[in-house]
């Protein structure tokens, strides 16, 4: 068996909505498959089918060689699921939540305890182990949720937007933990809205939109496909915006656009940025900000589909707001901040 996760022609309809309209995907054993797409793209539906929570209308899906419909029991015995919500019991302690899963899986009491202790240590939750989960922070809950999905040592993990609503620090921690699991040979299907996250963790990425796979490949292949990086230039004096636009266009070509008070252009040639700097300098235009940043998810979508990603509807607005506040930037510019040129 070469594929741990495999689907062919997966389709699912909810009343008016065609959630999945024929999805093919596959993940080799021991790799991470990133599923990238906006809210409502069908990511969660796909994960729920793989985790045996939903049955597909058409097509078939196999996990570790077992059909998710006919051999649901065999699939359940091999997978772990971490959903968009931290599905842990608020009124139990961290330890009790893990004991619950261990006992449900038929582990003897002693083994359940040992496993709970081991996982709490691994996820840096030992100090909070005896506290009710309702006192946990968002990041701690997610870590406990991930730990809960690992109690039975699943060989295949489904992670549905595991970092949505987390601050960058907690997100980084969760990434490290996932890398550790994959190093142990676990196969994972990871859905995310963040290109950066898929880039960091996935061996291959499928981009999904409106229930269809619209692009597929390694992170590098995808980035090449959508133009990779974007150069953003903001003149100090807004009155010079048009002049600067014309100058940049002469260097970079017709894809140059004005967005707000900046000029943006996709970059394929590494020599472009120095050329733009020289040109603007030569014309005496003072540049307030010059940034080279990776394509955002929005730009991936624009490039791949010709339409922008649907507006985000965060399901946990308070936590999402917190995350944005910690990041200190509204979403897109975040990844580019470190690469800003002075």
């Amino acid at each position: 068996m070469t594929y741990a996760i495999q689907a062919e022609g997966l389709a699912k309809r909810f009343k008016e909505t065609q959630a999945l309209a024929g999805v093919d995907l596959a993940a080799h054993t021991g790799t991470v498959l990133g599923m990238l797409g906006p809210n409502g793209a069908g990511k969660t539906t796909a994960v729920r089918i793989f985790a045996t929570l939903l049955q597909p209308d058409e097509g078939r899906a196999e996990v570790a060689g077992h059909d998710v419909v006919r051999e649901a029991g065999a699939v359940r015995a091999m997978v772990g699921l971490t959903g968009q919500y931290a599905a842990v019991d608020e009124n139990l302690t961290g330890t009790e939540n893990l004991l619950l899963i261990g006992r449900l899986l038929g582990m003897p009491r002693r083994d359940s305890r040992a496993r709970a202790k081991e996982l709490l240590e691994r996820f840096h939750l030992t100090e909070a182990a005896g506290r009710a989960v309702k006192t946990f922070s968002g990041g701690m809950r997610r870590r406990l949720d991930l730990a809960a999905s690992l109690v039975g040592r699943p060989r295949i993990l489904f992670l549905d937007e595991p970092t949505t609503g987390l601050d960058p620090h907690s997100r980084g921690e969760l990434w490290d933990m996932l890398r550790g699991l994959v190093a142990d040979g676990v196969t994972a299907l990871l859905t995310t809205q963040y290109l950066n996250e898929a880039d960091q963790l996935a061996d291959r990425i499928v981009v999904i939109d409106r229930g269809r796979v619209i692009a597929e490949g390694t992170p590098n292949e995808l980035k090449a496909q959508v133009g990779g990086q974007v150069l953003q230039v903001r003149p100090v004096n807004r009155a010079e915006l048009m002049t600067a636009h014309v100058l940049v266009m002469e260097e970079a070509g017709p894809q140059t656009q004005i967005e707000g008070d900046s000029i943006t252009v996709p970059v394929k040639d590494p020599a472009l940025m120095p050329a733009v700097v020289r040109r603007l300098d030569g014309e005496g235009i003072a540049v307030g900000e010059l940034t080279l940043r990776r394509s955002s998810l929005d730009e991936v979508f624009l490039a791949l589909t010709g339409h922008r990603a649907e507006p985000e509807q965060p399901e946990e607005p308070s936590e999402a707001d917190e995350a944005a506040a910690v990041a200190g930037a509204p979403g897109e510019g975040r990844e580019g901040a470190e690469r800003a040129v002075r």
Partner: protein
Amino acid sequence: MAATTVAAPLSKSGRVHPLAGLQQTFTMAWRSLVAVKHNPLELVDYSITPIMFVFLFTYVLGGQMAGSPEAYLKYALPGIIVQNTLFMTMYTAMALNTDLTKGVFDRLRSLPIARSAPLIGRITADLAKHVWAMLLMIGLGMALGFRITGGLDGLLLGGALVIVFAAAVSWSAVLIGMLAGDAEKVQAFAFTLIFPITFTSSAFVRVETMPGWLQAWSDVNPVSHLSDAFRGLLLGGPVAGPVLWSLAWAAGIAVVFYPLAMRAYRAKA
């Protein structure tokens, strides 16, 4: 540590061995009970509220209703217990609804366990809480002057009857818990339903004092039958009629709500 892969006793299709299913059900019941330790509010629901009901009915209403608090307590305690038990079934609905909306059921369903274990485990744990509240109220009632003149078998049979009835009503609670959008709606819906049903019965007053049309309803009201049966068993006296009616109602409620509840549970959780 060597990888001790868990071999849950189940077939490929997901059928779970009955013994494993039983153990999973007990594990789920344990979960519901151990949660009380970290959630003192639940203790209020299952202990303070019942105690408050007994005190309020006895000392506020007792004098006017029956001449003295003790005299009224003798009539009303079984009814107060029945009412409290029915209210408490709605905690089952709220807890299931919370599991549903918080994604806990998703996690449980992705595990190789019996599909019914989370549901039956919850109901089992909640019935244990019913027994606890009932014992608390009877103990308090006796401290305030209530006497069980029907003997120990009367107490056991009466208690069992109320629990059987509660188990039947639990299936309506399951249905409400599955269909409601959130736990607050469960509460609002449940209380607007249970309040009038319990108060238009013989739980707290003799129905002869009601207007004729209300008496007609009260005579068929299951809460009347259950209260009369429980009262008769605790105090001694003829109880065959009310006991049979109570059992018939319990069976009827279960026959209607069990399939509806299971269908909603399978569709949603």
